[in-house]
């Protein structure tokens, strides 16, 4: 007998352009003790489904059809007061962004007490002790001290643990985790997912894990439902989905999930796979970094973000810079692209030391066009008041010296090069999808023919199928234009697809460096091994013949 059953759920939203059907007839069941994974890309309706069953839809959303039943209670018609009792005590939710889910001005311990007392799990006298117990349950060390911490004092992973503690404080029977690890480091992701799954098993709960990462779902869920455009296209065991996907969309997702043994072309749907471009062998050095140090003035004395690193990038080579947040990879890339000044060290670019020109004067430097960057957050990196055409044209107008007419031709040419349909050039950033924005960002960066391109997690915010396309685009551009890349990422699997050489950073130091295949196959440093082990391992990994058969 299933704990939760969703029958033919339909949800629609009222928008400026009329009603939009976000969920169109979804039927799902969650049995007692089962972990169901809902996998889909952005806009597939996976989050809306869960919000609908918690009755937490935004004010313009409406359930237009279907039945929701939880342990015999009809969630669609039950009174709001009953619903309030159910939330937290019976069904509980972990949100995507742990920092946003916590009240920033209240101590985390008090926030847990609120939930406990709302559902009469604790009284005024024992609330503190119960809250500390809840913190200990999510394996927070030194729970007593953490009780009086504010969310901003805690790391992202710790915040997510608090949110889990909140969600589990009243022993709910069903846990809904909406992208519980998005934005967390890969080792933290593993720790958080392991914790969730352990706690669920320990307490005999059921769970729905909503994620865009098929590999993650495969590793942690008993059963997976794949959603697309508001419908469930396929449902089944993880192994079966990977080994023999029945729906074309599932196949596409399985293919696009980066995994050991896959090549960049094999991420694409089979009909789009062309022969991989032949890359010229890299020989002459282009960029050489010597003893780069960056020290910030922190509250408690100076903080060394980068501790004297040295490495080289050859002409036409693609180097991956891997590490978790705070390892100094973003600082390094900001210095190399000359947006920040190093404290000491040399940046030899074609033999000239770029560090000699201060960052504030580099905008007017003739070498500005030679080094460009693709930013991580595609939304944040575009001026919201400028159209895509304007944004791509900006470096051309300032750096190329082309006439207005020639610039327009060049923008059209760039749009074709990155596969952006020309009519989209006149849209504003908020009118473009994530993948389209990534293309505009790449077009802008290559507009002035740079020799060296820094790619700062250009696919981190993208759906896997879009990521596959963008990664292939980058490979093609590198072959066509002979640009050298520095690919900054936290994901070793993605880096391996694109890079010949990998640098692993931790705490401002390079811990391991070498050819991509060697670092992936036989890592020498324990930290590299830890990173590799933390990455979700899709079942396809167990059957290398599958990807080879493609």
């Amino acid at each position, binding site marked *: 007998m299933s704990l939760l059953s969703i029958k033919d759920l339909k949800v629609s939203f009222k928008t400026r*352009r009329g009603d939009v059907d976000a969920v169109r007839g979804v039927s799902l069941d969650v049995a007692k003790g089962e972990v169901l994974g809902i996998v889909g890309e952005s806009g597939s309706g996976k989050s809306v489904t869960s919000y609908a069953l918690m009755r937490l839809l935004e004010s313009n959303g409406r359930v237009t059809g279907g039945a929701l039943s939880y342990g015999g209670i009809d969630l669609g018609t039950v009174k709001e007061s009953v619903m309030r009792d159910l939330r937290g005590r019976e069904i509980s939710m972990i949100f995507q962004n742990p920092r946003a889910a916590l009240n920033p001005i209240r101590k985390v311990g008090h926030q847990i007490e609120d939930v406990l007392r709302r559902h009469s799990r604790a009284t005024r006298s024992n609330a503190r002790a119960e809250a500390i117990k809840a913190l200990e349950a999510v394996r927070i060390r030194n729970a007593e001290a953490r009780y009086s911490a504010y969310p901003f004092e805690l790391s992202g992973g710790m915040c997510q643990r608090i949110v889990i503690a909140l969600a589990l404080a009243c022993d709910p029977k069903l846990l809904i985790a909406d992208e519980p690890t998005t934005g967390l480091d890969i080792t933290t992701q593993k720790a958080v997912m392991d914790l969730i799954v352990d706690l669920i098993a320990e307490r005999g709960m059921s769970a729905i894990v909503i994620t865009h990462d098929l590999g993650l779902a495969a590793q942690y869920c008993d059963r997976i439902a794949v959603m697309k455009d508001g419908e469930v296209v396929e449902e089944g065991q993880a192994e079966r989905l990977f080994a023999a996907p029945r729906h074309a969309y599932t196949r*596409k997702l399985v293919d696009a999930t980066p995994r050991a043994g896959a090549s960049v072309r094999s991420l694409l749907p089979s009909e789009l796979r062309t022969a991989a471009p032949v890359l010229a062998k890299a020989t002459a050095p282009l960029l050489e970094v010597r003893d780069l140090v960056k020290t910030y003035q922190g509250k408690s004395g100076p903080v060394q973000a980068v501790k004297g690193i040295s490495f080289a990038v050859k002409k036409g080579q693609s180097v991956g810079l891997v590490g978790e947040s705070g390892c100094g990879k973003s600082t390094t890339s900001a210095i190399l692209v000359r947006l920040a000044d190093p404290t000491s060290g040399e940046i030899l670019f074609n033999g000239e030391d770029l560090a000699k020109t201060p960052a504030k004067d580099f905008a007017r430097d003739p070498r500005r066009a030679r080094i460009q960057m693709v930013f991580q957050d595609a939304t*944040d990196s575009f001026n919201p008041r400028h159209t895509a055409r304007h*944004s791509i044209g900006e470096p051309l107008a*300032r750096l190329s010296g082309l006439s207005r007419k020639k610039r327009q031709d060049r923008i059209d040419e760039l749009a074709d090069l990155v596969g952006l349909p020309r009519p989209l050039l006149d849209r504003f950033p908020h*009118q473009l999808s994530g993948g389209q924005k990534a293309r505009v960002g790449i077009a802008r960066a290559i507009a002035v023919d740079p020799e060296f391109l820094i790619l700062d997690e250009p696919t981190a915010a993208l759906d896997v199928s879009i990521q596959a396309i963008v990664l292939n685009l980058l490979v093609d551009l590198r072959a066509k234009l002979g640009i050298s890349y520095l690919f900054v990422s936290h994901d070793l699997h993605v880096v391996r697809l694109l890079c010949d050489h990998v640098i692993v950073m931790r705490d401002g130091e390079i811990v391991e460096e070498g050819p991509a295949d060697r670092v992936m196959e036989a890592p020498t440093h324990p930290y590299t091994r830890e990173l590799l082990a933390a990455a979700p391992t899709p079942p396809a990994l167990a059957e290398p013949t599958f990807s080879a058969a493609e």
Partner: protein
Amino acid sequence: MSDLATASLPAKQPDGALAHAAYVLRSNPVTLLAFSMFAVLLVAAILGPALVPYDPMASNAAQALQPPSFDHWFGTDNLGRDVLSRVVVATRLDLVISVAAVALSFLIGSILGSIAGYWGGWIDSVLNRLFDTIMAFPLFVLAMGIVAALGNTVENIVYATAVINIPFYARLVRAEVNIRRDAGFAQAAKLAGNSDIRVLAVHIFPNALPPMMVQVSLNLGWAILNAAGLSFIGLGVRPPTAEWGIMVAEGANFIVSGEWWLAIFPGLALMFAVFTFNLLGDGLRDIVDPRQRT
């Protein structure tokens, strides 16, 4: 691939600024009302002297202190001047004073606030203390002091009103610029070869416009009140010029003797103008914000 799918849809959408303005007006009746009221004010300001039935300055002792009638809708004052004509003609002067004052404080406040927000450091501290100092005064008294010290002219009313408003703009711009100083698009603009000043002026500052518009429109109403207030206490505009503040001040003497129309009608005009500008704010913001276009 979904990006290709959406791309293949016809990219047909009304994207022009005019179409967007039309949408904002259509979707919000209050904004439409505010803009129509603003149009009435503009017509009165531009065409006022040509529209009014009587010469606003011509006195006629025989017709003094007539209550509202068919010939004189708003009645006549103690010198027999037509109150309706004077109220309509006064619109131009009041609007000019307030718009000029707000434009001046917008300009100076934007420049100072941008500098403080973008470069920070000691410039920021010095400017902030300066704004604190201005704001520490009772603003109307400060304006009175400035007009009294500089001389009793219309220009000085404009300067005084501008000075007391600068801190509000500067602080708003400072905050808006400060949060975008290290935004991705500002860095991208630097990579595109823009100098700091260009990044600030072309990329960051225009993004502060939507909240500024709300401030501007609230401020316009406030500036009109301020100018009228200064005239009311005898500073700035002098009789016999038609101006709402003076008319209320002169009319106030006659309220006790029962001639209420002298003060009420210019007062209502003042209220109408302030109300218009207060309503206008949100609509203006929606129009200058491209993110409102979908």
